[in-house]
C-alpha cells in the first residue's frame, strides 16, 4: 500500500493547516524472539521528512517503541501554492516517498 497523505487541497494564505501522513511498515523492534529463541532483527523506519516547495518544514526521528504503520500529524502555515513532499527512510535501505499539491489563495 502506498502512503496515505492528507493535505488540504486549498487554503488561504496565512492559514494554519494540518498535515497527516501514514505509511505501512511493520516497525519490528529488534527486541522480539522467535519460538526457537532467535532474535528477530530490527526493521524500523528511522526518519521522516516533509518539504514544502523544497524547504524542510518537519522532521521526525522514529524509534523501536513506535507502533507499526506510523501515523504522523503536524501543522504548518500555508504560504504559497506548490508541492509538499514526504520521505520515509529506514533499516535495510528502506526508502519511500509521496507528495501532495496545495493551492494557496
Amino acid at each position: 500500500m502506498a502512503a496515505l497523505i492528507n493535505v488540504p487541497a486549498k487554503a488561504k494564505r496565512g492559514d494554519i493547516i494540518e498535515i497527516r501522513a501514514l505509511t505501512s511498515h511493520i516497525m519490528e523492534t529488534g527486541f522480539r524472539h522467535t519460538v526457537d529463541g532467535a532474535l528477530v532483527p530490527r526493521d524500523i523506519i528511522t526518519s521522516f521528512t516533509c518539504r514544502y516547495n523544497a524547504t524542510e518544514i518537519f522532521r521526525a526521528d522514529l524509534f523501536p517503541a513506535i507502533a507499526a504503520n506510523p501515523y504522523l500529524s503536524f501543522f504548518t502555515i500555508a504560504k504559497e501554492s506548490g508541492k509538499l513532499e514526504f520521505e520515509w527512510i529506514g533499516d535495510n535501505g528502506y526508502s519511500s516517498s509521496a507528495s501532495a499539491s496545495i493551492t494557496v489563495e
Partner: protein
Amino acid sequence: MTTRPVTRRNAVLGITAAAATLARPSVLRAQSAGRVVVVGGGFGGAACARALKHADAKLQVTLIEPNKLFTSCPFSNEVIAGLRDIEAQQFGYDKLAAEDITVLIQAATRIDPQERNIATSDGAKLIYDRLVLSPGIDFHFEALPGYDDTASEKMPHAWKAGAQTLLLRRQLEAMADGGTVAIAIPANPSRCPPAPYERASLIAHYLKTEKPRSKVLILDAKDNFSQQRLFEKAWKELYGDMIERVALSQGGRVTSVDASAKTIVTEFGNYTPDVANIIPPQRAGRIAEIAGAADATGWCPIDPVTFESKLAPNIHVIGDACLGGGIPKSAAAASAQGKACAAAIVNLLAGRAPQAPRLTGVCYNTVAPGYGFSLAGNYQPKGDIFAEVEGGATSPLDALPELRAREAAKAERWFQTITADTFG
C-alpha cells in the same frame, strides 16, 4: 475485597458480617432483608434476577427496566438483511414476574450508594442491600463529531436493536442497485466485537440476492478483528469482492460525519455512501455514570470475583458496561456474568466468601443462511479483570460446507436456549 472507601457505617457492617461468618451465618441470613435491585432487563440483568430468585426464594428481587419488551441484538443482523422478523427478537418479562420477581417498567434515574437507594422516573424510591447494574451501552457521541440521536435518524447505528434495526432495513430496501452501503466500525472496547463483520456479511447476502451491482464498504478503526480469517475467507467464497474493508492503517478510522450531506469523514478521505450505518464509539449505560461506577474510560471497573464496582460500594456491574478484560461484550458473556454475580451476592448476603467464577462465552456468526462459525472461550478472574484460560475453541479455517451449515443451525439453537433461559 475492593477499594471502596471505609466509612464508619460499612466498617461496622464488615465487622458484623465477619463475626456472623465465624459464629452463625444461618441466623444472619434469616434476619437479613436480602433486598436486591437489578437495573436493566437484558441478557445480563434478567439472567441475574432469575438466578438470584432460584438460588434463594426468600430474596426480594426487583428488576427495573424502561422497556416493556426487550429487543435482542443477537440475530438482529438477520432482521437488517430481511431474513427474520423483528418480532422473533422480542421478549417480555411475564415469566420473571410469575417467579415473584418485581418487574418495574421504569427508568432508573438516581442512585445514592451511601444510603443504598435508587429512584425511578415515576418518583418511587427503593432501598437495596445489593444493587446490580446491567445497563448495557450508551453512545459516546462526543467522540464522533456530527453524530447524535438526530443524525442517527439519517445514518442509523442499529447498535441497539429495535426501531434503528428497522430503519437500516428500510434504507437498504430503498437503495437502488449499484449503491454503496458503508459501515463505520469503532475501536474496542465495544459491544459484540465480531457483530459489525457479521452485519457486513449479511448485508452483502441481501445485496447479492436483490441488488448484485451494489457494494459494502467497511470503514474500520481497527486493524485486526475477532475471527478475521474466518470472515475474510467466507467473504471471498460467498461475495467475491463485494465487501471492501479500509482498515485503521489504511485510513479507515471515521473522525466525523455530516448527516445532512450524508458524508463520512475519515483521517484520509471523505465518503458519501447511499446508506451509512454508523456504529459510534460506546461507553457504559448512563445509569452507571450516575451511580459513580464508571471511570474516565466510560466503563466500570469491577472486582471480577463478585462484579462489585471498584468505585461504588454494594453496587455490582455486569454485562457490556463492566471492564471485563479478556471477556468480550456479548450476550453469552452477560448472561454468564449475571448468574455468577447472583451466586456472589447470595454468598455475600449470607456472610460467606464468594467463589471465583469460571465463565464461558460463546459467539456465533452467521455470514449467510446456512453458513456459520463460532468462537468459544473460558474466562477466570486474574487481578482486576477476566483473563482467557484454556479450553477455548474457534471453528477451523478449512471446513466442509456441512460444518458451516451445522454451526448455523447451532447458532439458532443457541439463540432459542439463551432467550428461554433469560426470559422464560
